[in-house]
């Protein structure tokens, strides 16, 4: 057997005689005596060592066999996937006037009608085939909670459908948090609300600059108050979007949350991401400081620094592991307020990327999203492939005006992965 192509070898900062091995294919990590590397090369491993290293993804029979394994990876995910996941944009309106939201000039008083909502439910019901075990619906916007009444009626019907079919059901929100009050959560919990993802863009002054109310005034205090009130009722994910100019301010937000009693045990996940750009056609006029690729050096520095600040305070954040895009999965659907369907919210209103309509169902396959863009020799020989699988098509489109080729993240992983993996080992593994 030989060492996997998707194995990275990093120095152990505590011991010159050992190294850390990380498999991007399995997200497994081991600390080994350097002599193990020689044993692998010379066929000198014991049986137990050989079996363990193979199970963890560090040893393979041949490069070709492993290449075939990767080529089948997403097909196999689709084969074992028993979830139907639907994101529904209830409107493209908002009570905030954010300086950067990617809907940008697409925003407006566009709301889903009760008739379209009925078609959404029919579409979901028709796609809950016998092999589905879980239905997950995410309400999205604009600000979805500006459509609370319609959401309540949809949620009630969806829960009933799931119960009739005997499958698990979960609702979630992507919300700005201003309207996520305990009374709203209480009502929606009856119909399966499990979690909400809420945005806080830094400490109060920084957040209020980028996310003021349309009528004027900051939204920070209201959002934090709501998080505090509902974080014991449902899982709350806190996200935040930073720019090159303000990312150093974000640790003060974490300290504020702790002081307010929004402690790691009461929050499901905390993750900060850079503000991404948009094409000039849709970008908000005020947008500045956005990045067009994670390969920008300031993003390396900001991402690592903020992840460390999150983890060292004990907040949970996602570990480094293989990630696939929802575009690649057959049972993930994105529905806009007018019933048009896409594979990614970033492509709303881009007619060439419509996959169907809730009335007629999926009529176009997803080939316009350039599926399998990573199935080429360069990507297959890249150690980071399982963490990326071609990257983000939306970012590629915004940056280059097309999605031919890949959104390569190799420079980002070359610069950051060792530190990210070691953060996981320090904070995640020691807690497990």
């Amino acid at each position, binding site marked *: 057997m030989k060492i996997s192509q998707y194995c990275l070898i990093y120095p152990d900062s505590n011991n010159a005689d050992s190294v850390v091995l990380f498999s991007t294919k399995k997200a497994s990590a081991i600390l080994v005596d350097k002599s193990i590397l020689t044993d692998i090369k010379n066929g000198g491993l014991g049986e137990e060592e050989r079996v363990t*290293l193979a199970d*963890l993804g560090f040893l393979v029979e041949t490069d070709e066999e492993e290449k075939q394994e990767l080529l089948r990876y997403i097909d196999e995910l689709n084969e074992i*996937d028993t979830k139907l996941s639907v994101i529904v944009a209830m409107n493209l309106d908002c009570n905030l006037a954010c300086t950067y939201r990617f809907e940008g000039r697409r925003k407006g008083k566009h709301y889903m009608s009760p008739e379209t909502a009925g078609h959404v439910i029919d579409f979901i019901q028709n796609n809950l085939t016998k092999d589905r075990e879980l239905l997950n619906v995410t309400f999205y916007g604009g600000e979805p909670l500006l459509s609370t009444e319609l959401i309540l009626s949809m949620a009630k019907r969806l829960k009933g459908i799931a119960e009739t079919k005997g499958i698990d059901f979960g609702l979630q929100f992507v919300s700005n948090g201003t309207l996520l009050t305990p009374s709203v959560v209480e009502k929606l919990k009856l119909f399966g609300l499990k979690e909400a*993802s809420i945005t806080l863009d830094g400490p109060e002054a920084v957040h209020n600059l980028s996310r003021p109310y349309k009528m004027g005034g900051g939204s920070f205090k209201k959002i934090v108050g709501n998080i505090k009130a509902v974080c014991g009722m449902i899982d709350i994910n806190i996200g935040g979007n930073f720019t090159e100019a303000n990312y150093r301010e974000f640790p003060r937000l974490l300290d504020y949350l702790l002081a307010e009693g929004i402690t790691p045990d009461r929050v499901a996940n905390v993750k900060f991401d850079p503000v991404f750009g948009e094409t000039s056609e849709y970008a908000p006029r005020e947008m500045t400081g956005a990045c067009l690729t994670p390969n920008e050096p300031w993003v390396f520095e900001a991402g690592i620094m903020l992840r460390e600040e999150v983890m060292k305070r004990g907040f949970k954040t996602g570990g480094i592991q293989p990630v696939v895009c929802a575009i690649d999965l057959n049972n993930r659907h*994105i529905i806009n307020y007018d019933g048009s369907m896409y594979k990614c919210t970033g492509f709303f209103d881009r007619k060439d990327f419509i996959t169907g309509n809730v009335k007629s169902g999926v009529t176009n396959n997803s080939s316009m999203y350039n599926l399998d863009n990573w199935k080429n020799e360069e990507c297959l020989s890249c150690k980071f492939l399982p963490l990326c699988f071609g990257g983000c098509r939306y970012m590629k489109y915004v940056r280059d005006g097309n999605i031919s080729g890949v959104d390569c993240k190799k420079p980002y992983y070359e610069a950051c992965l060792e530190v990210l993996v070691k953060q996981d080992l320090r904070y995640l593994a020691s807690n497990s």
Partner: protein
Amino acid sequence: MKCSIIFISEYFLTGGYMNKKIAVLKKGVTKKDVLMRTCCHTGTANIRV
């Protein structure tokens, strides 16, 4: 060496390798785990769907 593999809890309890050659720090994820963390771009961040 009869048993050359230890797991993370033992590693931290004993403060190191002792006489072992491999310490498993993270067992890794399954394809089911990967499906639970599917990424979807929602403007400025990613959510699990």
